[in-house]
């Protein structure tokens, strides 16, 4: 296995103070990686740096050997926490737009997923529930043949029934050579799919190892261990 993502001594500060305090980690190809930590621990900031949305950071970030830029963006499919589509856009138009933007986008696959999750191409974003909007954005992101999928809180605000649908979309649509990095604080619902776990607390890396190794080492589930580490 080769290292798809390499981060060395990553520092990032905002006005309120440092958010990332020297994080170093490697992520291999072909893994589903859970990125967990309490709110404000720096998960989203780290994702935004990898995705190329934040330029002023210290340290080294290499995605498939390239720093965040045009080359890395060709192989990263990023799902942010926020809805970035215009509220007046139709699902079908969004699919056409992504097909224009990305050469690795599979329009047929997107349309099939849309049908499977009972979304109509003619539906406007503003007429969709929060769960439907999340599904549409995830369909767009997962319809790319990317090497690295970065999914920032794809389950937040989604009811438990729809969570399984979201996980289905992720599990059924990533290739074995690609890596999924997924942040969540609903560890109990998703820990079964994680190959590796990255735990961040207060801007520092607490854990970066295989999920099985962590369970074996601690004798606890990821959720139990998370609750123990971050108990107030």
């Amino acid at each position, binding site marked *: 296995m080769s290292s798809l993502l390499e981060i060395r001594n990553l520092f990032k*500060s905002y006005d309120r103070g440092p958010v990332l305090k020297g994080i170093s980690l490697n992520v291999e190809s072909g893994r589903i990686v859970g990125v967990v930590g309490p709110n404000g621990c720096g998960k989203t900031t780290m994702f935004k740096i990898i995705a190329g949305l934040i330029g002023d950071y210290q340290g080294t970030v290499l995605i498939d050997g390239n720093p965040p830029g045009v*080359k890395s963006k060709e192989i990263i499919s990023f799902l942010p926490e926020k809805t970035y589509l215009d509220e007046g856009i139709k699902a079908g138009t969004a699919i056409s737009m992504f097909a224009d933007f990305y050469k690795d986008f599979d329009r047929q696959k997107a349309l099939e997923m849309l049908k499977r999750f009972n979304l109509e191409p003619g539906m406007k974003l503003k007429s969709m529930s929060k769960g439907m909007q999340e599904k549409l954005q995830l369909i767009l992101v997962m319809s790319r043949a990317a090497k690295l999928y970065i999914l920032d809180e794809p389950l937040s605000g989604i009811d438990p029934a729809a969570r399984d649908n979201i996980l289905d979309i992720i599990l059924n649509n990533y290739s074995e050579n690609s890596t999924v990095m997924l942040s969540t604080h609903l560890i109990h619902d998703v820990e079964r799919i994680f190959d590796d776990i990255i735990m961040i607390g207060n801007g520092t890396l607490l854990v970066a190892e295989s999920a099985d190794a962590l369970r074996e080492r601690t004798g606890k589930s990821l959720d139990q261990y998370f609750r123990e580490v971050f108990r107030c």
Partner: protein
Amino acid sequence: MKAGARMIPISYLATAAVFLVGLIARSLKIHQVTTATTILLFFAGIPCIIITLIYVIMRFHKGMFGNEGYLTQTLPVGKGQLLLSKLISSYIWMVASAAVFVAAWAGAMVVSNNLNIMPDIIDFVFGNSFAPLVIFIVVSSAVQLFAFLGELYFAISLANTRQFLKNNVVFSVVFFFVTNFAVSLLELAAMLLIPLGIKFTETGVVWTTKTMLGDLIFNMEAFTGNQPLLSGISIGVGSCFADLAAGIGLLLAAVWLLNHKTSVK
């Protein structure tokens, strides 16, 4: 382009509607309506330009640093290319609105039946220099618009760096006015001091290699009052070079900020 396509043409259509009403009123000899539409047409271009300006600013801010930035800034294209695409669409809309502004003035002249006196006014003010002057105004306005968009993009990008991110809207306005003032000074200095310009004579326009400042001082004493108003006056074209240089510099600075310093909230 699509969002603008919804908003700006409404102002164009409104201007066209006023012109149409004015024409009908003129043919029906309803003088109050003719006068009202003439006045409206004189001012109709202003809201068109203001709406376009708001659109240009909002599209850049929202498209690069708002929620839409999560899509645009993760596309596999360089930041320079992104900026260029915004620049091209903004430029087209601004030129279109400026054209509507000019057309509205021409429309006002048509509705008020004053179009026939224009040649006399032009002859009195410009003499044979009108056509070259129009070309000069079009070229210098085109370059000025380029510099103006450079100022806008630079100011908004700078306001979205870490130190200013909390109050990015306020800082965008402050940075724009500071940048605009600096570029205006540069433009004025270049216009007055670079020894290259066009000179209006009684027979037309000629190139001159004297500075505009020197020519101004000389011509103040030589003006007799019997020639067209602009005769003997020169205009330094250095301002065009200054605008071009400022526009390129500011856009490059904006690209650098986008690559190294800005953050999407």
